[in-house]
């Protein structure tokens, strides 16, 4: 039994009398297996939050069905809400109540017996902060509290919509640890984000949503291969012009820039072979650099968005020799 399954899910918003109809999700078939950490990736406006809204019965689908933990959501609203923990998009907490009181209410509503202190400690919210009204919280503190509330009642499924927004690097690291711990404990995690490095770091599988369509589902590695967004080898040599690499196995492109060769490899093993080959042929290899395709590039391939995302578009250097 999958933790989440959608079948032909479509959601259109009518634009009113004068507006135009908007299709937010179009015939989406999504399967999230039990126990996995599933990254739900897509640019802003791709339909991620709409999908989550339908999963949680905040929004009603135009067509198609949705099953969460084996129950059809629209037919049995609330059948599984005591087993699902959520950090929804655009949520708000009760600002006049303290952080601790918000959390106590959440525990109470889940008929849970969690110790609020333990949960606060887990998400890294200090006790003195927890005793202040939530209205005074920063975005990051609110996000930590919301995560603690989602974790109350030991859910079987965690649905996190952009959970890292507003978190500082410490908070992000803690979030990753929590996601891994939960997954180790058997919880399925559905992690939606437009920040690629977040998804890459924690997810077993990634689904890429673009314009309401699921354009790819695979492991991060699998996506790299499938997209042909390969790794790049950059060599600094004295005489780049004289090196004929020709058409070798695993090399798709060779580009010369000054005294540097950019070799695009579809198979990362081709990198080592190329370096060994050049050294053997007596070329003086001054420097070797290598970049692995980041999800940003893969993402761009699938979503036809060459400019990518501002903070993650940079390919990350893997080795700088």
């Amino acid at each position, binding site marked *: 039994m999958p933790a989440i399954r959608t079948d032909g899910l479509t959601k259109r918003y009518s634009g009113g009398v004068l507006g135009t109809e908007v299709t937010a999700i179009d015939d989406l078939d999504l399967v999230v297996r039990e126990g996995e950490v599933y990254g739900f990736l897509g640019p802003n406006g791709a339909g991620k939050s709409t999908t989550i809204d339908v999963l949680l019965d905040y*929004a009603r689908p135009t067509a198609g069905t949705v099953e969460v933990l084996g129950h059809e959501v629209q037919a049995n609203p609330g059948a599984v809400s005591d087993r699902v923990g959520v950090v929804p998009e655009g*949520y*708000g*907490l009760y600002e006049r109540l303290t952080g601790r*009181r918000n959390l106590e209410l959440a525990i*109470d509503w889940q008929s849970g017996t969690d110790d609020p202190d333990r949960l606060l400690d887990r998400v890294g919210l200090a006790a003195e902060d927890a005793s202040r009204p939530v209205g005074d919280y920063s975005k990051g503190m609110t996000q930590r509290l*919301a995560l603690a509330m989602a974790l109350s009642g030991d859910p079987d499924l965690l649905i996190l919509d952009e959970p890292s927004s507003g978190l500082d690097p410490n908070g992000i690291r803690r979030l990753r640890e929590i996601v891994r711990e939960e997954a180790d404990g058997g919880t399925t995690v559905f992690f939606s984000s437009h920040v690629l490095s977040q998804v890459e770091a924690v997810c077993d599988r990634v689904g890429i949503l673009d314009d309401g369509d699921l354009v790819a589902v695979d492991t991060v590695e699998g996506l790299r291969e499938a997209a042909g967004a390969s790794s790049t080898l950059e060599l600094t040599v004295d005489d780049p012009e004289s090196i004929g690499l020709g058409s070798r196995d695993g090399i798709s492109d060779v580009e010369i820039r000054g005294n540097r060769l950019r070799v695009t490899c579809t198979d990362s093993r081709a990198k080592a072979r190329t370096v060994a080959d050049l050294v053997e042929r007596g070329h003086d290899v001054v420097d070797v650099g290598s970049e692995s395709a980041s999800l940003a590039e893969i993402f761009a391939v699938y979503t036809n968005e060459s400019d990518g995302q501002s903070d993650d578009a940079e390919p990350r250097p893997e080795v700088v020799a």
Partner: protein
Amino acid sequence: MTLAQVARKDFEDAVRSKMVWGITAVFVGFMLFVMLAAMGSSDTSDATGDAALGLTAQLSQLFVPLIALIVGYMAVVGERRSGSLRVLLSYPHSRRDVVFGKLAGRSLVIALALGAGSVASILVIALLVAPPDPGNVVGLLASIVLFGVGFTGLAVGISASVRTRGKAMAVAIGSLLVFLLVWDAAAAGLYAVVTGSLPGLHAEAWFFLAKRLSPVGAFRALAGGFVEGQLSPFVRMGLEDLPRDASAEQLALSNRVDGPLPFYLSEWFAAATLAFWGAVPAVIGYLRFERSDV
């Protein structure tokens, strides 16, 4: 019992709202001010506690709906706009629990605020004028609370029906204006169309029913039984063709209708009307909320 959980949360949240306390304070303050002014200007020697009670009822016609609408109109739409509804619904609360839990929570807030306000003004009456009849005090208090809860149901129903704060406010203010200004005039207009003349000192019984079908009219009918003299509408439009020097005796309902009073002009019927205004808009609001996207 998640409805009770929602109600409890809502009550807890609302009593921390400065607005609710502010409104209650304004209500009590205004009551006292008008009462003292009215007593200062009249000869207090013949003022009775029960007449002063009538003044409280008179002022309640405007203030109770106003307070209930202010406290209730944001109940659901406010959480919708802030996003806390998304959190609330991620727990095992159904949308029905949310609407009726809110209704219960806000009704409790209103009942306490109006109860406190009314008790304060009745205490002042007892100290400054004369202690009113205890039976009338209890009856009036109950009428005011029922009136407030009825309007809270209307307000929560409006709040559940719409998507924006602006719409909720517009509908709430619009309905208040209809009940305070338009309803009685429309009833008189209808009477003129049906019978060919404006309602006079003697009129068909159904005209009085038409006026009592609004929550404000129902409150007037209900509270009128506990105060001395006739409760008149807050805004008098002069649409009824009444002699200027008509005595209270002549204006009494039993003298304006031929024969014995029908059941629908009883105080019980007025109380049921108020309960209807509390329940039906809330149910309609819930049905609209159930079908909409959050």
